[in-house]
């Protein structure tokens, strides 16, 4: 593209941008997929490390669902939130201090994901 008012000519070179755009989507899918798997593994590792295991239902319920440029990492039990953030019930069995497992897993992956995502545009 050239703009020439008077003696000034401006040329926009989009070749580098077009090179980055080409193949960006599959690369992004790969980055997202790797991050999701790391978070899934990290979440399960945290559950084991913090002894948040009784029957193994919580641990075995952690899974990844895939969509277009999207991954949903979730558990399949109704009490996951209580393990993550704690309860206050004053009896012998259901009183829990928070033992976060998902939060630390996401936080551990955060710098890796941001770095990999940044690399997509270089």
């Amino acid at each position: 593209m050239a703009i020439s008012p008077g003696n000034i000519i401006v040329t926009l070179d989009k070749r580098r941008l077009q090179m980055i755009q080409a193949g960006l989507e599959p690369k992004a899918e790969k980055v997202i997929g790797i991050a999701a798997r790391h978070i899934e593994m990290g979440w399960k590792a945290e559950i084991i490390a913090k002894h948040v295991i009784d029957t193994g239902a919580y641990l075995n319920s952690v899974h990844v669902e895939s969509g277009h440029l999207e991954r949903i990492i979730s558990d399949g039990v109704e009490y996951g939130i209580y393990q993550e953030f704690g309860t206050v019930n004053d009896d012998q069995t259901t009183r829990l201090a928070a033992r976060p497992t998902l939060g630390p897993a996401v936080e551990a992956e955060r710098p890796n994901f941001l770095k990999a995502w940044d690399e997509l545009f270089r």
Partner: protein
Amino acid sequence: MNALEQALWGTINATSAVTNLLAGTTSIYNLIVPRNQFFPAIVFGFFGGGDANETPRRRKDLLYTVKAITATSMQAAGAIDAQVDAILHNKTLVVTGWTNYWMARERDIAYHETTPEGREYWHCGGIYRIRLNPS
């Protein structure tokens, strides 16, 4: 991290707009409300993060939950949370041995708990990112 948790406790305890809504001025607890204590109460606790290890200069990048717990309603818990948010989000803590250069709320927490005996509790709060350098 003791120094940070002391700073959090002290900041919340020093704010009458928060403590006036609690069962007592010291109804602020780390990780769990002790047995036989009363509600409303605030519970804060380490959630994730640690040393960034990006450069030789030490940097802590931490996540802490701070939430209100009531035995009456989510509205009551939310009212306490709003006061806590006002003294933490984009504010600075005085942490012994450290400079707190960033503190901001990133996520909200809200859930309900029903005990086997039928008692109900409402939890409302936030997850705060707190960044520190050694002083």
